[in-house]
Structures are given as structure tokens and as C-alpha cells.
């Protein structure tokens, strides 16, 4: 086992898949849509800056990580934001 993977297995964080699923659910809620998948672009689904902040609020509450509006714009998909959350821990 490499040192990297042993760090990953001992870390008590949720699995990436669960995080992505949670973000899909947040997108669905604020966009009032059911057409969200892991790589759905928030802005292409009709999202705007106002409701993007609601996603950031939900992330801060649910995952304890405060992302900036710029973070969101750079990675406006469930999997992109999951990566930002992981990087922010």
C-alpha cells in the first residue's frame, strides 16, 4: 500500500460518491429540477449567482467548508464542488 492510499482509508470523511450525491440533491432543491447528474453544469441548468449562494450555504452547513463564489464559478458541477470540498478540508 502506498502512503497516500493508507491516508485515505484512515480518513473519517464521507466517501466522494456520497458527497456528490448530496450535491446533486442540493442542486435539485435550489434549481427545482430533477435533471441533475454528477457533471451537470449549474449555470446551464438555469442557475444564477443568487441561488449559487444557496448551494454554498448548504455546503457550509452540511460539510463544514466555506467555499467562495469564485470557487463555485470555477467548478459549478456536483463533482467539481465535491473536489473543492475535499480540498477545503
Amino acid at each position, binding site marked *: 500500500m502506498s502512503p497516500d492510499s493508507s491516508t485515505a482509508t484512515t480518513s473519517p470523511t464521507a466517501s466522494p460518491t456520497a458527497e456528490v450525491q448530496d450535491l446533486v440533491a442540493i442542486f435539485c432543491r435550489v434549481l427545482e429540477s430533477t435533471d441533475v447528474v454528477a457533471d451537470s453544469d449549474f449555470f446551464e441548468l438555469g442557475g*444564477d*449567482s*443568487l*441561488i*449559487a*449562494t*444557496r448551494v454554498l450555504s448548504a455546503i*457550509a452547513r452540511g460539510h463544514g467548508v466555506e467555499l*467562495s463564489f469564485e470557487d*463555485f464559478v470555477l467548478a459549478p458541477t456536483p463533482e467539481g464542488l465535491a473536489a473543492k470540498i475535499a480540498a477545503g478540508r
Partner: protein
Amino acid sequence: MSGPRDAATGSAAEPTAGRPVATAVVVGAGLAGLTAAAGLTARGIEVTVLEARDRVGGRTHGLAVAPGRQIDAGAAYLGDRHTELLSLVAELDLKTTPTTMLGASRFALGAQHATRDGRFPPLNAVALGDMFELLDELTAAVRPEAPWLTPDAERLDTTTAAAWADEHLTHPDARLFFPLFLGEMMAADPADVSVLHLAFYLRSGGGIRYLNAFEGGAQQDRIDGGAHQVCERLAERLGTRVRLGEPVLAVHQDADGVTAHSTRGSYRADVAVVALPPLLADTIDYRPGLPVRRAGGRTARGCAVKVNLVYPEPLWRQHGLSGWSVNAEGPLLSTVDDSPAADGVGVLTGFVTGSEAHRFAALDARRQRAAAVEQAARLFPMLPPPIGFHVTDWVNEQYSQGCYAALFGPGDWLRHGPTLTTAHHRVHWAGTETSTEYFGLMEGAIRSGTRVVAEILTRL
């Protein structure tokens, strides 16, 4: 006063037209009153419209900024959910034009001015998100067709938006932005509206996102040449049925009919439509008296003063700016590019809202101009001095008493909501404040006019 009486009873109508099925007198030639009048006329009812001002249009008003270039000094924006307005626009052979929002925005929310792409302010995004989540929760919980039946309505109705913000908004950025947001959305100071009204207003207009958005939202388009043309064209069709310069002082009813007494005459009809904002409707003497007044002790005037700065062309666009700005300090709390669609002059519209509107309105014309022009120069340093400058003070406008719409304060919805659309014998109520759909917007005004037509047809 035999002239007006004849006109109203129909005896002055063309003999070939035959006897009208009924007569109606409409008080107020804004969008609601004119929609009602047009609808009743189309069904063979003989209508007289009494308008206090020397113009029609109410809270829509055109302003000439250059030869052949009119802009909106009042209501201006619409979106694709405003279906009644859009079909009226099409029917009247008018066109819409998109509200331009391309380029970067300017923000003066702290010590320094900032330029940023898009409309998002340089504030803590999570703090604003927390605020919008709370507002969305309130908005989702409200009963839009009957706000007084909302769960926990009593508490929401007695709490002001200011008290709510004090309790729920902890981050300084949210506290800074909340009054600016309320000013933009509903021309309200947070102390003036109940939480129930705030939640209802946002819900009625299609939710926070729709109400706030330009593209894909309630500010997507304008009416090319000005929204007042809708009223002007409706009035043209109604012809001599519309009588200007006749403020109505009293509406008296008896067993056989209703009489509207204006400053110039008396108009007898089978039914009346009062299409006025609630504060103005309450200045009329009703007999028999109203069981519940139209406005409450805390009903406030919508606090909007609109400032239009005219430039030789929309010069900010050459600098990659949209003309949109948001500012913590007044008088211009936000600015937007309201340039006419055709080539030529550029127009920046500044919104002076909430308590700032009262402060600004109290200044003399010279000080108003100095303050607004100076602020515009700080926000857009590349611009030359404006070639034209216009202030429209809706707060103190005698025959509107506020704009965008009346602000329902603590207690108003529970006391006045249930009778908002209840006819007082032969008197029916229209106006955007009587529409639970798109309350406060042009769309709400039109829907109220249509509702009143249906009510009257049922009665007859």
C-alpha cells in the same frame, strides 16, 4: 352636470348601438382600470373612466429624453411569465426589448469601489446564501392565494422584516445586503413591511430567483418606447369614455345604483370599479361606509424615486460595463442601463428606494441633481456629465401615493387581506395590490382588471 350624467347613463351613446346591457364607472385610468374598462366595453357595458390626472397610465409614465426617444419614469420591466401583459402588448401592436445586462458591474459596498463580472456583489457568498435560504423557506411556506391562512400567519404578520433581519441575519454582509435587496425587489424599507408581506411578495412575483433575475426573470424585457404606451393605446380605443382631470371624491350607493362624484360631475352607473392603490382608495367617501378600510394604519407608500441620467450614448458599454451597480450609500442604491433600444442616447436609471427615497425626495432639485450626478461620476468615472437629468418622485405623487406598490405593514394582511377583493355592494376593487398573482407588478394590475370584469359579468 347633465353632460357627464348623460354620458354615463348611455343616453349620449350612438342610437344605433342600442341599449347597453349595463353601465359602469371606473375610477382610475392606470393599467388595472383601463384593462377593466376595455374588458367591460368589449362585453357591451357602457363605461366611463374617471382619471384624476391630466394623463392616463398611473404608475406607468413616459419621459421624452430625446426626440422620438421615450423611457420609463415608472413601471418598466417584464418577464415571460407575465403572460397577460405580454398578450396585451402583442394585441396593442407594441414590442418588447431586452434589458441590457452585458459586461461587468460596479459595486460600492465598502471603502472601495469594485468592478466585477456578472451581478454578484463582492460580499461573503455563504452569508448571502444563508440569507437567501431563510428567505426561500419563508417564501415557500406562504399561502400565495390567501397569505392570512399561512401557517403561523399571526406571528409573521406582526413581525417587521427589520426585526426578522435583526434576529436571523448575523453576518455583517447579510445585514448590509438585506435592505438593498428589499429596496430593489419591493421599494421597501425593512421597517415598513411585515415578514408575511415580504414572503408573500416574493412568492407572488414567482420566487426570489425569478423576481431578482434580468435574463430569465422579471426584468428580462421592457416595452419598446415605454410601458405607458399600453395605457395610452387602451385609452385611445376607449376614446371619450375616458375623462381626465376628474378626481373622484365620493362613491355613493343606493338600492338602484351607484354614483361617483368627481370634482366636475356625478356619474350614475350600475356598478363601479375602484382601481386605485389602497391608500388612495381610502381618500374617497363611501356611502354606505366600508366595513374594512382599504389600507391599515401601518400600510406605507412604496418608497421609490427614479432618477434618469441621459448621456449622448451608452458610453459605459465601450468600457465593458453593463451600467449595473449596487451601492451601500445613496442616493442611487442601484443603477441599470435603461437606454432606448434604438441607437442614440444612453440612459442610466438610478433607483432611490426605502428610507433613502424619503431623504432624497426632501432635497431641492439642485441638491438632488448634484448628489446623483456626483455619485454617478464616482461609479462611472469614464462618463462625461449627463446631458439630461430627470427625477420622478413617486413617494410624494399625489395620485399614486408610492411606487412600486403599497407596502403592507404589521397587521395589514390579517386585517385587510380577507376582504381585498370582496365587492362592497356595487363597488368592485382592482389595482395591482388586489392581485395575489404578481402583486405590485404591471402583470398583477392587468390580472386584477380581468378579475373585476369576470366578477361584474357574474353579477349581471
